[in-house]
């Protein structure tokens, strides 16, 4: 197929989306997704994830910028793109009075090269619900039905908007396994999520969105590594921050205090921790409430949200960690 030579299955350039009321939900973002990769758009509610995905799905035309999916514009060249993509919207969109099987059969009639509906229902564990009306399904079961329909046409590219929202822990695991298996089978997956754990577990690469922009992008490890680790402790009675050894010699990049609580940020966690503990041993003091933790995606996420808000007016704030 002609697009096999394209390394990037999804390409987004300076993409913007403005709603009727003038609200700019997507404010100039760039990213690309390689074939066979799981790419996660991570962000809080209102960060612009769904607005972005809808542009990729071809549901709306961008206000500015460019989207290419499998080498085509998903909005204007819909007929070329749609037979090769599968979409799971954030919210169902099924007639409540149809049964699961009727819904799947209807959708199968609208999908080129559809697999047998029963097969995809089994894939998501809904085979026993085939005769149940959609309105009687739980939230999690509806999500799984949506996933099943997105998979009906064996899509090359799969868009999943918050695929595990409303699922219990087990359902989430099952969905993760299924999505990973699809990726291993060569499917390219773009998903949005506000679960950090999900992005960390599933994504080959991710972009953290905040207020319509991409605040950080790279592999989960790259994004995490760019964040400082933290050490928190309570200053011993009678000691002040100035009594600690010189912080920059310990590799501390910054610190702040909250009453007697001291927080150190460092990119050299072992050196900082060793120096601090040696000092405490020599001074024969106990560091109460000591907490030493390496950076996690969660901290990266929260840190970025804070940073971006603070730097909002200082121009570009995109951190490009990817090689």
């Amino acid at each position, binding site marked *: 197929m002609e697009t096999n030579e394209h390394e990037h299955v999804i390409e987004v350039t300076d993409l913007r989306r403005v709603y009727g009321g003038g609200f700019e939900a997507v404010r100039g973002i760039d990213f690309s997704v390689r074939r066979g990769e799981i790419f996660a758009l991570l962000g809080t509610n209102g960060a612009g994830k769904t607005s972005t995905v809808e542009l990729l799905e071809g549901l709306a035309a961008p206000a500015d910028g460019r989207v290419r999916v499998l080498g085509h514009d998903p909005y204007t060249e819909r007929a070329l793109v749609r037979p090769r993509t599968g979409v799971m919207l954030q919210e169902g969109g099924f007639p409540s009075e*149809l049964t699961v099987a009727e819904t799947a059969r209807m959708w199968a*009639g*609208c999908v080129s090269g559809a697999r047998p509906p029963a097969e995809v229902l089994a894939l998501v564990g809904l085979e026993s619900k085939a005769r149940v009306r959609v309105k009687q399904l739980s939230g999690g079961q509806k999500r799984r039905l949506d996933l099943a329909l997105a998979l009906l046409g064996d899509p090359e590219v799969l868009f999943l908007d918050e695929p595990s929202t409303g699922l219990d822990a087990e359902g989430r695991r099952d969905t993760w396994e299924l999505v990973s298996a699809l990726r291993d089978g060569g499917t390219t997956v773009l998903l949005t999520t506000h679960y950090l754990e999900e992005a960390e577990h599933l994504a080959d690469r991710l972009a953290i969105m905040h207020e319509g922009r991409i605040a950080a992008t790279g592999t989960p490890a790259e994004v995490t590594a760019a964040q400082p680790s933290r050490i928190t402790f309570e200053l011993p009675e009678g000691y002040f921050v100035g009594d600690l050894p010189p912080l920059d010699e310990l590799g501390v990049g910054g610190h702040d205090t909250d009453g007697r609580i001291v927080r150190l940020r460092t990119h050299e966690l072992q050196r900082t921790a060793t120096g601090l503990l040696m000092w405490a041993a020599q001074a024969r003091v106990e560091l109460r409430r000591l907490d030493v933790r390496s950076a996690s995606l969660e901290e990266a996420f929260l840190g970025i949200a804070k940073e971006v808000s603070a730097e909002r007016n200082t121009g570009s704030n995109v951190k490009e960690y990817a090689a």
Partner: protein
Amino acid sequence: MSATHTTARPASAATTALSRMTALARAELTLLGRTKGALVAAVFVPLVMPVSVRAAAKDMDLAAAGLNTGTLVLPASIGFSLLFAVYSVLVGSYVVRREELVLKRLRTGELRDFEILAGSALPAVLTGLGQCLLLTAACTTLLDMSAPSAPHLVVAGVLLGLVLCAALAAATAAFTRTGESAQATPMPLMLVSMMGSGMFFPLELLPDKLASVCELLPLTPVVSLVRGGWTGDLSASDALGAVATAVAWIAIAVFAVQRRFRWEPRR
């Protein structure tokens, strides 16, 4: 159908506009059968309303207008059928599907916008067509009507009416925000049509000026074509004028849908 799918999947199993619309129409038909209000409107009302027209006809001087009970009641019945079974049912189903995010979901797939609206309309349109046939058979039998003098005009009137009512329903849905307001938004057109399109009283019995305004209403050409097809009183130019009026209304409705139809609810 499923039997062919259990074997190896053919690479060429691409969908066509027709296959997609059929799949959608089949689901809509199932839904129509499960929605009580729509079912009553679709099956019951248009079969009951003609009786009231017949009652009203007793007080009219039909002979002066070259009509009899049959040529008054039959076109009116077809008009009721189109308004209740097609127009009003479809406004409701378009709006409910939008509220349920079904329209948005359908738009993520291979279906084109026109196919979504047309496929969803198919069951109601077929119900309407079935009713028109049934009413025609009933009226000719019970009201001693002769065969139509110009059957092609009757056929043209019914077909135009079906397309027109589906298009007007989509246009009305474009101006309807919620499922609740979908109870009210079809009313203006339904009332105006019943009063002014020659359903309750023939335009021939109205003052000339009023009649010429009423001729421009959306459903008037449908009623005129059916009635004229039966009586044979419609001149070729009048028939063409009626067809042109109906086509113009279809064009207006399609234009409104293209410009205004929303595929997902306002938030």
